[in-house]
């Protein structure tokens, strides 16, 4: 059974905001929610001034995977990519948020005779860090970043996983794509389940690679969400057997084999 959210949104206080390379880590006090499972997410909106940013947005709450949780605190990680994340980036300790969650279905264990292999990058770190910590086995995590400033985000998962980094510009670790590291690792030992989260282009490459190697993969996906609890039917991805799945109730983690090739644009 997945942890179930308390009914409705609740008002919580920001306890701290830290910069980690190109990212922000937001900590909030949440004493009334249950401990979430890795891959689950929350809908966030500020209590004050949610709106009135670029294009008179944001209006709807935004979905964020939790990075870690415990001791009555939830931690989130994000990068300023639009009016919602920009507003969240303005928060200081003591400011208030509306949160709803934990929502959705997270990762499932690899089962017997297979090891967990984490692959992802960029803003895909939070669910992978939470999963590594839940597994407790210090799994290998292959992480891709644009550049060194973004690669600093790897620090957020280093305590829970053995990290190998790739950067697009070669400023740190392997010069190239994380899927090159993944291909080598799958060729070396394919008895694994791949857990992945990252930008759409990366997820599609991971999906295709795992399909090619006949390795099961669980992907933590993203889609534009209005509600996060199944109300709007907005957050769908196309399934291989036809039809669509709502990411907020059936996902955000889905088995790669259920999916059609993923759209590679920012949609």
């Amino acid at each position, binding site marked *: 059974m997945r942890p179930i959210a308390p009914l409705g949104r609740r008002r919580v206080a920001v306890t701290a905001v830290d910069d980690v390379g190109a990212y922000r880590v937001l900590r909030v006090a949440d004493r009334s929610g249950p401990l979430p499972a890795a891959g689950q997410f929350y809908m966030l909106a500020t209590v004050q001034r949610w709106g009135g940013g670029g294009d008179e947005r944001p209006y709807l709450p935004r979905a964020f995977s939790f990075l870690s949780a415990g001791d009555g605190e939830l931690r989130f990680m994000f990068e300023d990519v639009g009016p919602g994340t920009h507003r969240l980036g303005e928060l200081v300790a003591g400011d208030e948020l*509306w949160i709803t969650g934990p929502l959705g279905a997270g990762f499932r264990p690899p089962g017997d005779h297979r090891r967990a292999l984490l692959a992802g990058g960029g803003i895909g770190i939070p669910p992978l860090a939470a999963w590594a910590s839940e597994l407790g086995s210090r799994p290998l995590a292959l992480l891709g970043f644009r550049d060194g400033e973004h690669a600093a985000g790897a620090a957020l998962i280093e305590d829970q996983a053995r990290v190998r980094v790739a950067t697009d510009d070669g400023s740190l670790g392997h010069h190239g794509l994380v899927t090159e590291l993944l291909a080598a690792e799958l060729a070396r030992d394919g008895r694994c389940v791949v857990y992945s989260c990252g930008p759409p282009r990366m997820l599609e490459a991971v999906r295709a690679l795992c399909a090619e190697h006949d390795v099961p993969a669980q992907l933590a996906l993203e889609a534009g969400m209005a509600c996060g609890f199944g109300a709007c039917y907005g957050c769908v991805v196309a399934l291989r057997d036809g039809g*669509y799945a709502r990411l907020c109730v059936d996902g955000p983690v889905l088995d790669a084999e259920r999916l059609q090739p993923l759209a590679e644009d920012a949609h």
Partner: protein
Amino acid sequence: MIDFCGLQLDHPIVNGSGTFDAIAARRAFGDALLADFPFSAFVSKTITLAPRAGNPPPRLWEAPAGMINSIGLPNRGLQGYLEHDLPQLAELPVALITNVMGSTVDEVAQLVEAVGARDEVAAIELNVSCPNVETGLDIGADPLSLAALVRAVRPLARKPLIVKLTPNTADVAAVAVAAESEGADAVSLVNTLRAMALDPHGGGAWLGGGAGGLSGPAIRNVALAQVAAVARRVSIPIIAMGGVAAGSHANDLLCVGAALVAVGTENFRDPCAGSRIAAELKSLQIAGSPSSSMNAS
């Protein structure tokens, strides 16, 4: 208690069709949802005769103080609804209003007859924001085709029949009058306003379905004007909606003549918006706000 077409409701706040999925919400929030159900009646998402997958993504665009959706009415179809959804919806602590849509009179007739025969269903809402296959016009945009539809399906169910009007028409009150004259028990409005958005990175329409419907605070005052216009012309009860996010917005709609108020997009921001708005409305009514005394005079 409020009497709405014979249904006894605890308060005047219901949900807009397609903006709250009680089955999914129960998965997300557990049985606490039943103990504190946000609405005094539950309106189901539109169902059609055949199952529909809905539109390709992206389905959402955030607009200034609102959103545009192009969901495309995904649903299990009539059989799927009756077999899968209805038993679960029957567990809700409130009356169930089932919303249906068809693209021909015959399709709507089959839906109304089948849904109307079920004890679990307290009332039927007809979504008429659907293009007529012959004329290409929305059935609900034209008083004559709407009248023909209501005339044909009204006798097929003994339950209250609510006609959900489209705002995308020249004279919404004329359509409401047509619905009333053919025996509709109530009208509801507004549905979403036709809208579109372009992909900021170029390449045409953002929404997978091309165009969509605007909802949320952005349409609040449009809705108020349309509800007022309809209330002046019909005497059947009105379920009013459009951009309601607080008790005062609901109060405004009641002041211009609505019997019930539906909350739509605000549910996405606040899953318990229904209970919150009902409570805010109640305290406004107790305090005797200027607008409610205006209503009484």
